[in-house]
């Protein structure tokens, strides 16, 4: 078993299985064989992430997470799954029955569709669309409609308020998300995810050509991750669904399996956006150093995905929740100008000759506005003083 065989083992298995199917059935079986692993692997990853998150958050908050169900609590997702399947499905009497039923389905469908253009490994992408990145964002915009449907159909003030906030947040953060990915499209000259990853899979001596190792790529990656956190309504941007603020926002009136579907859809969206970040900035399935290419490509993809998930959990446990106006101000006043400047910097990078001056100019072009903008946005540089308390006498 050469490293190449292990790397392409799934592709070889699929071709072997296809060779045993009759010719007219081959397109259907090929599609089914491509889609079934996605349907199996990512919900499994969702289950692992829920328990990782609860234990991780618990440890950050100086407590154990769940530790009763299995070895150190790692069978908790099984218990959670059984619970959500057997809970009573309560639908409010005045709720819009049809839309109330459709909303979680639309959310999960849109979240699953986004995986069609992510290259999980070498030659392992479901479809190689020419406009792959555009397809990803188009499908992501269907999630907002599903969120609105969920909030509206519940006919409850809390869920409507949560849905409006969530939709406003998702629309606002979609702009920096798309703009941050435009730099990568500019640099690679193609909208196809496979082409973008193939361009990053080269090495000079041992260093990889990932886009994150350039000034504009680094800033773009950070902006993309912040926007991705906001797009999937995760802390610190989870005001629309914060437990202490609005008691789960737009999915208050959902119980049992539909609630689990919302949870699944939200996490799948998080994995999909992380997967796109890995594809655009972190080199997709390519290894970090040229002497590590013997490790299979899909192992690298999932390793990077797990690293990003751990960063998400870490940020959730560390930072406090942003208020709605702070959240929107961040999107429109800070991230939008930074993404536009990032695009200009990427253009400058492309046209300058390679060398030290290019690094200096581009880093200065990004760091100076960042410093000035953040200083200007903290309300004129209010000095942080020692907090004094006044108590009632």
């Amino acid at each position: 078993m050469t490293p190449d065989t292990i790397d392409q083992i799934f592709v070889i298995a699929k071709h072997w299985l296809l060779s045993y199917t009759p010719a007219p059935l081959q397109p259907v079986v090929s599609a089914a064989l491509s889609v079934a692993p996605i349907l199996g692997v990512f919900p499994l990853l969702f289950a692992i992430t829920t328990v990782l998150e609860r234990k991780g958050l618990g440890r950050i908050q100086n407590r154990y997470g769940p530790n009763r169900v299995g070895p150190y609590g790692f069978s908790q997702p099984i218990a959670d799954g059984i619970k959500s399947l057997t809970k009573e499905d309560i639908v409010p009497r005045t709720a819009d029955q049809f839309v109330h039923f459709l909303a979680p389905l639309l959310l999960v469908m849109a979240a699953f569709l986004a995986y069609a253009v992510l290259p999980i490994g070498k030659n392992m992408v479901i479809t190689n669309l020419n406009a792959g990145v555009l397809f990803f964002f188009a499908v992501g915009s269907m999630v907002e409609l599903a969120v609105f449907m969920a909030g509206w159909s519940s006919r409850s003030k809390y869920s409507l308020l949560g849905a409006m906030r969530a939709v406003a947040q998702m629309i606002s953060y979609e702009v920096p998300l798309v703009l941050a990915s435009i730099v990568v499209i500019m640099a690679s000259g193609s909208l196809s995810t496979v082409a973008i990853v193939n361009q990053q899979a080269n090495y000079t001596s041992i260093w990889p050509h990932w886009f994150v190792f350039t000034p504009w790529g680094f800033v773009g990656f950070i902006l993309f991750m912040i926007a991705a956190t906001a797009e999937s309504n995760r802390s610190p941007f989870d005001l629309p669904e914060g437990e202490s603020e609005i008691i789960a926002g737009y999915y208050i009136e959902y119980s049992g399996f539909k609630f689990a579907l919302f949870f699944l859809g939200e996490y799948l969206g998080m994995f999909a956006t992380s997967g796109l970040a890995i594809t655009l900035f972190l080199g997709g399935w390519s290894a970090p150093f040229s002497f590590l290419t013997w490790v299979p490509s899909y192992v690298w993809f999932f390793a990077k995905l797990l690293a990003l998930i751990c960063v998400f959990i870490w940020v959730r446990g560390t930072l406090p929740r942003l208020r709605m106006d702070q959240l929107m101000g961040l999107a429109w006043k800070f991230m939008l100008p930074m993404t536009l400047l990032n695009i200009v910097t990427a253009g400058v990078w492309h046209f300058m000759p390679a060398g030290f001056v290019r690094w200096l100019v581009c880093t200065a072009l990004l760091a100076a506005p960042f410093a000035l903008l953040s200083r200007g946005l903290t309300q004129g540089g209010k000095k942080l003083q020692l907090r004094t308390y006044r108590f009632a006498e």
Partner: protein
Amino acid sequence: MTAFFLIVAALTIAGTAAAMSLRNPIHCILALTLSLVGFAALYLQLGAQFVGFTQVLVYVGAVAILAVFAIMMTRSANPPEGQSHQAAFSSSWLTGGAIAAVIFAVLAWCILSKSTPMQTAIQQPDVSVNQIGDALMHKFALPLEIVGVLLTAALIGAVILAMPERRKTL
């Protein structure tokens, strides 16, 4: 006239028909969204990938949400109770039918009078994103700039509409 085209066309027409005839305005918008997705599928079938995905991104992701917000903010979201059912053959049906027949006749005349059979097969233009970008930057640069100005004006208008009014202190 493949099966795919027939199914997608049926879905689109069903969506638009539902958008016109459902009681609840939010249901109408959702049916319209279904027909917009059907249009996107037709664009994809014709090979226009960029236009198809942009249709979903813009129409479903922005226009449909704008429409539901508009309907939600005005109070016409609940279907009015006690609506008088119109008679089966009221006069509005007659005028509506007449207008539809006139439009159909004009369209049919246009299509039939121009459809001379093509002698040579037209080479299908290869519309890729590269070419669209190229055209936008070279041949259609002025329309691009004008659209940019239009969008800026719309954004400024939205900000002015949403800005809290400042009361002048007496």
